[in-house]
Every structure is written in C-alpha cells, then in structure tokens.
C-alpha cells in the first residue's frame, strides 16, 4: 500500500509539501480549535476540514478519471442527451411526464385493462403519447388471478389487473399507426411473473405481424430485491434466478433491443438499509444476474450492456448521496471489468434515469409543504452527479392520495429552476478532486465492499436471502434509525423538533387530477372477475391443460428454457396464475425467515 502511494506522488516535492501542510494543520488545531473546544466545553469539534493530507498518494486517473471513461467515478458520459437539448426543451416547453415517441409515458395503471386503455386514449388525445409504462396490481405482481381469494380487495388498486393475454392486448389497442409497438417503447414494472409479461409482449408482436426483434422497452425483472425489500416474490431465490436466466437468454435471442432488467437499491434503502447496505446488496444482486448470464454461455460484453438500473436509495445527507453515486459507478465498473472480464465500456456503466435524490422516506406527513425544499436538496445532489437536477418526489407524496397537480407543477418548476437558472449542470462532476468528497467516496466504497465480502463468504446473494441475513440487517437498520429519531439524536423538522404551537401549518390548495375514476376503481374487481370467467369458458380448455402439463414437465428440467412454453401458454389463453401455479408446484414458494 505504502509503496503504491510513493509511486503515485503528484510531484517530486509532494512529500515536503505534505509535511508543510501537516505542520500548518497542527498549528491550526492548536491555535484555533483547542481554545474553542475549551470555551464550548467540547471533547472534539462537530465539524471537519479536509486537506491534501487526506488524499496523500491518491491516484486521480485510477480512482476518478474522466467523465465517460473507466472507472466512471466522474460520470457515465461527458455529454448527455438532455443536456445537449436543454435549450430546445425550454424553448418548446417540453413536458417530460407526457412522454414522446422516443420514450414511455407516465408510470401508471389501474382497474381493468379496459379502464387503463381508456385512460391512455384520453392521454393521447391530450398529446401525451409516450409508450405504456405499466404499473400492475399486487395480485398480478404476486402471480395471482383476479378471482383468487388472496386477490380480494387488491384487484386494479395499485395498478392494472392482468390475468391473461387478452387483458394485455387490450391495453395496447390504442397503440397502432404512429404509436405501433415497434415505434414506442414499453416499461413493465413487475418481477416475479416477469417471464409471463415478456411472453405476452412477444405474442402481441407475433399477432400483429411485427418481429419481436423490433420491440423496445424495459421490464423491471429484478426479483432478488423483492426478497430483501418490497415483498412481491413467489418462488424461492434459486428457481427465481433460473427464470431470470430464461428471460435473459430469450431476450438476447428474440428481442435484442429490449433491456433485460431495471435493478436497484432504491427499495432496499427505503426499507431501511444504510447507504453501504444499499450499495452492497444491489451489487450482490447484480453479480448474481451477471453470473446467471455467464453460466448460460452468454457474452457478458453483450448482455450486460442491456442491464439497467432504476435508482439507488437516497437521503437528506446530500454530501453522502453525491459520494454514494460516485462510489456506485466505480464499484459497478470495477466489478464488471475485474470480476467479469468485461471489455465493453457500455457494459460497465450504471444506466439509470436519475441519480441522487432524497428518497420518499425522507418526506414527512407533518407540515408536508416542507417536502418541497427537502426534494430540492435531492435535486441539487442529482445535478452535481451528472443527472438532470430532478426534484423528487412531489411534496404531497406522504399524503397517500396521489400527487396533486400543484405539487407536480412545483416539482417540475423546481427542477427547471435548478437546470436553467443556477448553472448547476454546467460542470461535470464538480466535486472531483475535492479532498473531502474523494475521501467520502472512498469510505462509502470501502463500507460497501466490506459488506459485499461478507455476502460472498455466505455464498452470495441467494444464500444471504435464504438465511434472512439481508432482511434482518435492513430491519435492524430501520429500527436503529427510528430509535435515533425518537431519542432526538437525528432531527426531523416538524416531527421531533420545532413542533410547538408557535409553528404555523402552511397549507395550499391541492387538486388531485381525477386520473383514476373512483367509480371505475370501485367496480373493477367485479368486472375483472366476470370477464375472466367468460374468457375461461370460451377458450380451448384441453389445449390449456396440455400446454400447462408440458410447462410443468419442462420446469423440472433446470437446463430447459421455459420461455417458449410460457409463450405457447400465453397465446392459448392460459391465465397468469395458471402458469405461475404450475411453476409453484415444481419450484415451491418462498418462505421468509423469521424476524
């Protein structure tokens, strides 16, 4: 280690210079710090200051490098699309939430497929023509049909209910002509039954006479984080990874333009993980997906370039979140290069739509307008880490009623103010070389790597999930955080401080756009169950039984890719749950370890 440092000296006189700085620091501590500690009766200061001493021997080219170059600490690219076109976007008043033919529309979904289709038609008539960005209801996410007892009360609630191919096809009815599925991309935020949804997309293309190879989009397909946080798993992690492999091989072969997954630590951090756990667990998950591809005989240089991330977690500690993003880029790039032997730079970068943010769990129900400034802090952090300075979430996020048009307007305007009035994104990685930021980046990286080592010693992410290690670790972190808030070690304004009657509850008008018709929501379950019944009565049930049998036989052979069978099932109107049930019989269901 010491020898390395010697080699990396910035200049021949660095040693003497550092000695000078060290002496100056000593004098500063003695003459300025010590008397103040005495005066305030403190053991040590609650501030810090970084000098060249903290970075002695650091190697800029090796650890930071240029934006767009390995190890990508300073960013994925020296010029992003949004930055190049920022002026044009302002001149034309571009609304990112409306989407265009280049991208997907706003994330959403509710009720029956017909309800959601009608909503999309309404959006299209308003010029919001992005591709489907589908939220599925919890029953669908858990591989259950709408007529399942467990689905009671959940049908069409947090997303759209998809029971069979006909439901899926219904959503796409308005996507023809200039919005044909080979022209607009789709996003599917689903994990455990992701194979079934991918199959539906492929079958839809086939029925329309379009090559699946022309389809674009992103399935979430990140089942491992569901075991660690969020909870919409079905099968144990081993068979779940096998299904991931099957989807990966199928996508590379038949739908090469489709991204493979959208991974992340966002859900993990929101569930309570520390920054280091967030980074370590999501990297361990990524490693498992990468290994699945390598074991299937695929070229990592090819398929890893189709891996994406949705987001990591965030917090109000903006210095730490900036360092986190820098560390994450470096850890991922080094893992791809050193561990997986990747040579393709595109396969080494974390492709994610946003970078730093505060995380929804930083928002408070108390005095909710304050969340606007909280989210703006996240926007500043994002702007300093190579992304659009996205202010997220809208201030009324914790009210749980959907975002109001006022909160959404304020969110967009805050982002625009940062982007157009501050110049925050004019400099790439503005913290590069900061004695402080580089030290913090190293610390977060080291913490995450230590945690990753631990997971490796346990046998990797699957073993760490099966033993409940990751789940317990983040539950413990969440509880520690709660204890710090209750003991007022951590302050949250309006929650555990400044809560007296002297404070004013500032309120503003809040109109929630009637996106999802409450009358439709109320009857969705009944209507969906009815249409499912009709569909089951009208299909060729003999073919259904035979195809499900074949799927079952092939599921038992782990070398078999199940995607062709799942496609056959989907095309012949097997339901989502029927397909998942067959695999439940073979794979079993995941049981969470006790708390």
């Amino acid at each position, binding site marked *: 280690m010491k020898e390395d440092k010697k080699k990396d000296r910035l200049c021949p006189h660095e040693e003497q210079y550092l000695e000078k700085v060290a002496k100056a620091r000593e004098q500063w501590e003695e003459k300025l710090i010590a008397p103040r500690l005495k005066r305030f009766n403190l053991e040590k200061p609650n501030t810090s200051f970084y000098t060249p001493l903290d970075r002695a021997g650091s190697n800029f080219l090796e650890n930071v490098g240029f934006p767009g170059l390995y190890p990508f600490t300073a960013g994925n690219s020296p010029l992003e699309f949004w930055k190049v076109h920022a002026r044009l976007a302002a001149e034309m008043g571009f609304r990112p939430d409306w989407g265009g033919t280049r991208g997907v529309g706003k994330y959403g979904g509710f009720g029956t497929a017909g309800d959601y289709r009608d909503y999309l038609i309404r959006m299209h008539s308003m010029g919001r023509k992005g591709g489907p960005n589908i939220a599925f209801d919890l*029953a669908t996410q858990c591989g259950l049909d709408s007529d399942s007892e467990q689905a009671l*009360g959940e049908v069409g*609630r947090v997303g759209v209910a998809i029971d069979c191919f006909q439901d899926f096809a219904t959503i796409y009815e308005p996507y023809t002509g200039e919005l044909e599925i080979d022209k607009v991309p789709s996003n599917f935020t689903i994990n455990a039954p992701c194979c079934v949804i991918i199959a539906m997309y492929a079958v839809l293309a086939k029925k329309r006479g379009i090559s699946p190879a022309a389809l674009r989009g992103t399935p979430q397909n990140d089942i491992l984080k569901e075991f660690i946080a969020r909870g919409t798993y079905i099968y144990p992690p081993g068979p779940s990874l096998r299904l991931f492999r099957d989807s990966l091989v199928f996508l590379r072969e038949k739908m090469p333009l489709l991204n493979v997954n959208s991974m992340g630590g966002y859900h993990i951090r929101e569930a309570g993980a520390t920054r280091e756990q967030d980074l370590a667990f999501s990297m361990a998950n990524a490693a498992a997906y990468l290994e699945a591809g390598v074991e299937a005989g695929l070229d990592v240089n090819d398929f890893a370039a189709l891996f994406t991330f949705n987001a990591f977690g965030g917090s109000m500690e903006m210095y730490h979140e900036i360092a986190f993003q820098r560390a994450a880029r470096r850890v991922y790039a080094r893992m791809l290069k050193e561990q997986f032997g990747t040579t393709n730079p595109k396969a080494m970068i974390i492709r994610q739509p946003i970078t730093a943010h505060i995380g929804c769990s930083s928002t408070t129900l108390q005095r909710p307008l304050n969340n606007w400034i909280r989210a703006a802090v996240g926007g500043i952090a994002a702007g300093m880490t190579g992304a659009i300075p996205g202010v997220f979430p809208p201030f009324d996020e914790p009210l749980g009623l959907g975002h109001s048009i006022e909160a959404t307007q304020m969110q967009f305007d805050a982002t625009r103010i940062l982007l157009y009035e501050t110049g925050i994104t004019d400099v790439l990685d503005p913290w590069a070389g900061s004695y402080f930021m580089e030290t913090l980046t190293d610390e977060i990286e080291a913490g995450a790597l230590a945690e990753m080592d631990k997971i490796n010693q346990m046998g990797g992410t699957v073993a760490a999930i099966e033993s409940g290690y990751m789940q317990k670790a983040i*539950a413990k972190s*969440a*509880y520690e955080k709660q204890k710090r808030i209750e003991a007022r070690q951590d302050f949250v304004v309006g929650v555990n401080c400044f809560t007296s009657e002297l404070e004013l509850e500032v309120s503003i008008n809040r109109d929630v756009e009637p996106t999802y018709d409450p009358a439709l929501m109320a009857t969705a379950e009944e209507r969906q169950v009815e249409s499912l019944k009709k569909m089951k009565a009208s299909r060729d049930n003999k073919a259904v039984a035979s195809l499900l049998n074949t799927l079952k036989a092939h599921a038992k052979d782990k070398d078999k890719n199940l995607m062709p069978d799942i496609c056959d099932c989907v095309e012949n109107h097997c339901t989502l749950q029927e397909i998942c049930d067959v695999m439940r019989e073979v794979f079993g269901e995941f049981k969470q370890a006790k708390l």
Partner: protein
Amino acid sequence: MTDNAKIRVLIAKPGLDGHERGARVIAYGLRDAGFEVIYTGLRQTPAQIASAAVQEDVDVIGLSILSGAHLALTKQLKEQLAARKGEDILLIVGGIIPENDIDTLKQMGVAGVFTAGTPVSQVADFIRQNLQKAA
C-alpha cells in the same frame, strides 16, 4: 412496568402489500418496550390474522397497510374476529391512511390509527392506556 410483560401484540400485514419497514420497526420497538410481540410476516388473509390472534390469545392486533386497501381489509378482519369471539381484542392500524379514512376506521371499531412519523413510544403508551381502560 412489570404489567407490560403480559401484554401480547400481534403485528400483521394483511393483503399483498409487501412494504414491511413500518411493521418490523413497530415489532422491534414494542418488544424493546416490554411487550410480547408476534409478527405474522407478509400476505396474511384477514381470516389467518383473526385465527392467529385468537389462538395466541393476544391483547392487541396492529395492522400495517400501505396499499390503500385498509378499509376493505379492516372490515374483513373485524368480521373474522367476530366469528371467532375475538371482538374484544384491541385493534390498531398503521400505514398510509388518508385523513378522511381515519374516522371511517374508528367507526369500524379501530381504537387508534397511526400514520407516518408516529414514535413507537406513543403507540406503546396508547396500548397501555387503552388496555387499562378496558380492564
């Protein structure tokens, strides 16, 4: 304080919602506050929760719901509890509960509704006070 040892709490996640940070934090917190806590884990039906509550002879059920299905699920649980003579069990609900629904839940027989930002100590105090009242 010694009375706390006798208070048995079932923390339950009804429905398919998998957001369990709140449930786990409350479970840990009430345990540290001296309660005996059982956590059901995810995806429990109201019937399963009612049956576990009666079998385990708990004093309190804490439902954690963040999916918006709180009205339907709470109503079902009340029915299931009544069918098993468990209607005396103190029922509290936590999660993302819109202001307007809090009264509706209380009319259904929910003793307390706790939303984001509530200290665990407040939940613990609420349970102690309400069980005393009932005794």
